[in-house]
């Protein structure tokens, strides 16, 4: 791997790709990189197709600046990555479904996002008409053994959550295998984005996963700004940080309460519900939308913050943090609750590292990565947060990462809101000239959101790819539930809290 990276570093990258280099490589180098990923020499950040190329974003410990490598598609095929590095499998199944490009020797060729309901195949490729299939017609992996039974769950679940199918194989109470089937909320986002102007594209990207709307808009804006090679005013950067941290706090509070609720401990759920509501209400008051949708835009932000509203946010933080500390004390001091969360749903550090899992899933299993610190961008380049790290990998560790992140985000907000720079909140976008490609990674509450785009000469989106952190977390839930009882699945699932919509696109 080092040899390939050194060799690439000596070559001129593709022109107009910012801020990190992109290199076109031949099939041989591509496969060598895939093998190196499989051997743990680098992290796979994403994998996607664009017309006649397949792109792979990666980052290695030795070369911490991310890198994009691209291989040409020849005769509708390219060398498969997933056979060397399993974390790429679902991404490659999606490429196959959406573009009709065949990863050569892909070990798993079952459709992933294509449930046979579109009336044609390869919507971003040839769009060849195809027969409609029964959506339930999907070959789950066969399971053999005495006393085993299957429990099908979904796509419509019992709670107020998104749709997806879980196929459990259990031996009595013990889960011996979980297989996920996703794609139910596939809305064709990539197809909608191609050809969209920046304003419309921004509104679509903000709705890829509603709980992470600020993170997605932030990533989109940064990718556009990278492509156009512009920087945003200091006040805009800091307001983006304020919104991103409010989003993180609100979601973590919701998750902590919901995890306790799944252990039938409703007291914390009720209190976290009120705390979360306080944050959403003040966000709505300050920025005009409770989830702050469409507030981060290319060039800056669309909503300014008055001095009075900044003060109100600080007041709310001062009100809720001692209250939150009480909730945390109850969580930490209630043995019946800890009995459910400690030692449940363990994800090994080895798997978290192999899948390059971000967010609380990775950081609860020893993977010390946070884009705000490790790929610092404004406003975090001036003040990175403390990044909590746990090794246990269980539900409890994922709760503690969230608790510590609520505290760290509060610290950031207190610092920023007390010293917001004056000045403009938006800068005008220059006209597009020549080839323009941009990539950005932004730390959402759930993990790192990657967004790559190519602008057409008319300033519209030619191709845009968004990789939700859930792509690299969903497969690990299958491993974490192994050997646990069926009744603990809601706990494990909630502690991962993967996005269905963000994954299905």
């Amino acid at each position, binding site marked *: 791997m080092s040899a390939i990276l050194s060799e690439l570093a000596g070559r001129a990258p593709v022109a107009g790709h910012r801020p990190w280099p992109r290199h076109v490589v031949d099939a041989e180098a591509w496969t060598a990189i895939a093998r190196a990923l499989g051997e743990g020499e680098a992290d796979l950040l994403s994998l996607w197709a664009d017309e006649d190329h397949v792109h792979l974003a990666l980052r290695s410990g030795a070369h911490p600046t991310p890198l994009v490598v691209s291989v040409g598609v020849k005769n509708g095929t390219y060398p498969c990555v997933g056979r060397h590095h399993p974390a790429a499998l679902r991404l490659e199944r999606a490429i196959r479904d959406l573009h009709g490009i065949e990863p050569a020797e892909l070990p798993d060729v079952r459709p992933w996002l294509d*449930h046979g*309901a*579109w009336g*044609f195949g390869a*919507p971003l490729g040839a769009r060849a008409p195809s027969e409609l299939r*029964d*959506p*339930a017609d999907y070959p789950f992996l066969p399971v053999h053994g005495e006393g085993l039974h299957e429990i099908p769950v979904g*796509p*419509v679940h*019992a*709670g*107020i*959550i*998104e*749709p997806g199918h879980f196929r459990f194989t259990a031996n009595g109470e013990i889960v011996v295998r979980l297989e996920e089937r996703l*794609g*139910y*909320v*596939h*809305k*064709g*986002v990539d*197809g*909608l984005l191609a050809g969209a102007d920046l304003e*419309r594209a921004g*509104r*679509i990207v903000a*709705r*890829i*996963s*509603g*709980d992470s*709307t600020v993170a997605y808009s932030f990533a989109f804006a940064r990718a556009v700004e990278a492509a156009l090679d512009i920087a945003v005013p200091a006040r805009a950067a800091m307001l983006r940080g304020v919104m991103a941290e409010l989003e993180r706090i609100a979601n973590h509070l*919701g998750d902590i309460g919901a995890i306790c609720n799944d252990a039938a401990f409703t*007291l914390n759920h*009720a*209190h976290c*519900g*009120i705390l*979360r*509501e306080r944050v*959403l209400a003040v966000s*709505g008051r300050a920025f005009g939308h*409770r*989830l702050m*949708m469409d507030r981060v835009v290319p060039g800056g932000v669309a909503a300014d913050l008055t001095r009075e509203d900044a003060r109100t946010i600080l007041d709310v933080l001062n009100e809720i943090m001692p*209250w939150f500390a*009480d*909730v945390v*004390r*109850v969580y930490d*001091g*209630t043995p019946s609750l800890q009995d459910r969360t400690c030692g449940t749903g363990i994800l090994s550090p080895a798997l978290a590292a192999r899948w390059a899992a971000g967010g609380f899933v990775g950081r609860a299993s020893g993977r010390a990565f946070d884009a705000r610190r490790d790929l610092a961008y404004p406003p975090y380049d001036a003040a990175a947060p403390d990044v909590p790290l746990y090794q246990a990998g269980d539900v409890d560790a994922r709760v503690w990462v969230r608790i510590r992140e609520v505290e760290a985000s509060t610290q950031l907000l207190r610092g920023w809101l007390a010293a917001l720079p004056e000045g403009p909140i938006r800068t005008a976008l220059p006209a597009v000239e020549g080839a323009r490609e941009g990539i950005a990674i932004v730390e959402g509450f759930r993990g790192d959101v990657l967004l790559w785009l190519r602008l057409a000469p008319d300033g519209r989106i030619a191709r845009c790819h968004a990789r939700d952190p859930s792509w690299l977390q969903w497969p690990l839930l299958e491993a974490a539930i192994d050997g646990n009882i069926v009744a603990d699945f809601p706990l494990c699932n909630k502690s991962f809290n993967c*996005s*269905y*919509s963000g994954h*299905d696109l």
Partner: protein
Amino acid sequence: MRTLLLRSLLAPLATTAAPAPGDAALEELGRSLGERARRLYGRSLAIREVDAGSCNACELEIHAINNPVYDVERFGIRFVASPRHADVLLVTGPVTRNMKVALERTYAATPDPKWVVAVGDCGCGCGVFEGSYAVIGAVDKVIPVDLHIRGCPPTPTALLEGLIALVDKVAAAPRD
């Protein structure tokens, strides 16, 4: 634990005042329900939420109406785990092609009489996903809808106004 319990006992009530039923919702329900069976449920409605393709923002706000601040249960409305226990389907969208069959089956599994509420700009129209190969669009393109609650996402108050209007119209009507 003692601190938290004391806080709950001594703090002023967290719950907001009840909003009045929404005028627009009452008007639409008057139209859509017409003379259709109005049954007495003792002002109680069981709701089954179905995400038929949403970005999950609507789900966040539907969750919020269950928190102690909005406390939807005080109006006799509760969320249930199965369509077979439900009077009302609360559906978010846009309905994706991959969710169409599941939505139809959920509707079929809900016993009569039943009502359907479409939630959000995508569930009521198609929102920003208009024109995609992967979506059918508004909920009423797949199953009949009695009430639309718009917003991207609708605020908890907007959701409450719509649902209270629904309770007033279908559950509190006098016994025939």
